[in-house]
């Protein structure tokens, strides 16, 4: 049994621990020891490799949902620009 939390196999850490390190790994935010454990585990564990790929894929699919039909310029842009220019002109006096 490995339920005592003391991991003696080559995987270094449990899959359940590796899974929780994925976002830190993708953000280059792991410390050296955790990075070493994570990469060693990943090199031997197909399940965690797939999980990492799927998180990456999820991020890509989520980014594709951005609503690109939003107006680039606000409807009141001319008004905003006038306000900005009036203020700029006032300051130069």
């Amino acid at each position, binding site marked *: 049994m490995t339920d005592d939390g003391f991991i003696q196999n080559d995987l270094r850490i449990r*899959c*359940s621990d590796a899974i929780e390190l994925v976002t830190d790994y993708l*953000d280059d935010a792991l410390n050296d020891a955790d990075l070493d454990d994570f990469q060693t585990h990943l090199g031997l564990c197909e399940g965690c490799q*797939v999980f990492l790929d799927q998180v990456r894929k999820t991020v890509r699919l989520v980014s594709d949902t951005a609503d690109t039909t939003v107006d680039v310029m606000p409807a009141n842009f001319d008004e905003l620009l006038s306000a900005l220019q009036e203020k700029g002109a006032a300051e130069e006096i």
Partner: protein
Amino acid sequence: MTEERAHTDDGDAAVVAGLRRGDADVFRALVAELNPSLVRMARLYVPNAQAEEVVQETWLAVVRSIDGFEGRARLKTWIFRIMLNKVRTLAAREQRIVPFSSVGRATGDDTPSVDPDCLNHVDLGRGYWPEAPFRWDELPANQLEGTEVRLRIDAGLQALPDSQREVVSLRDVEGWSSEEVCEALGISSVNQRVLLHRGRAALRGMLEEYLHD
């Protein structure tokens, strides 16, 4: 300059100077860069029409208060926070639940990213994949990139706890850096990553469930 300014985007100083002298090109470029993001984020709190109004008011506030911008934060996150204050006030007035005060106590922060019952290897025991997960991520593009999946992801985002949805939206929809998100939401980098991780893991789980047949 003080150390507080050290992290500020180098390009900000030129943009701020441009805004202060009323440079139309500088203003137009800044608005074009940030407006869609601001509108999409405002829509997390209020209906679309109101979101656009809030963002218009935000730009007016930027014009009026740019002289007071001290460069302690990036210009982008400063503008975002103006929008956030306005949209929160509006949402609160409309009796919507606004999550910001609860950032850091998001429900589900202790929930594992994968159901522990799914991690039970025949030899290694609990905490290990019994076999690699179903490879839904390798399905053909026509199954992964259609309208249906998109709608599912939208619904999945809506179903996330608010603090997770804010972070996932800024990081993964808007493509902001972790530093920018921390600054805009006023949260620690550790908290930011926990919220991002929980949100991404929940969306991955939702996709797996949906695509697994």
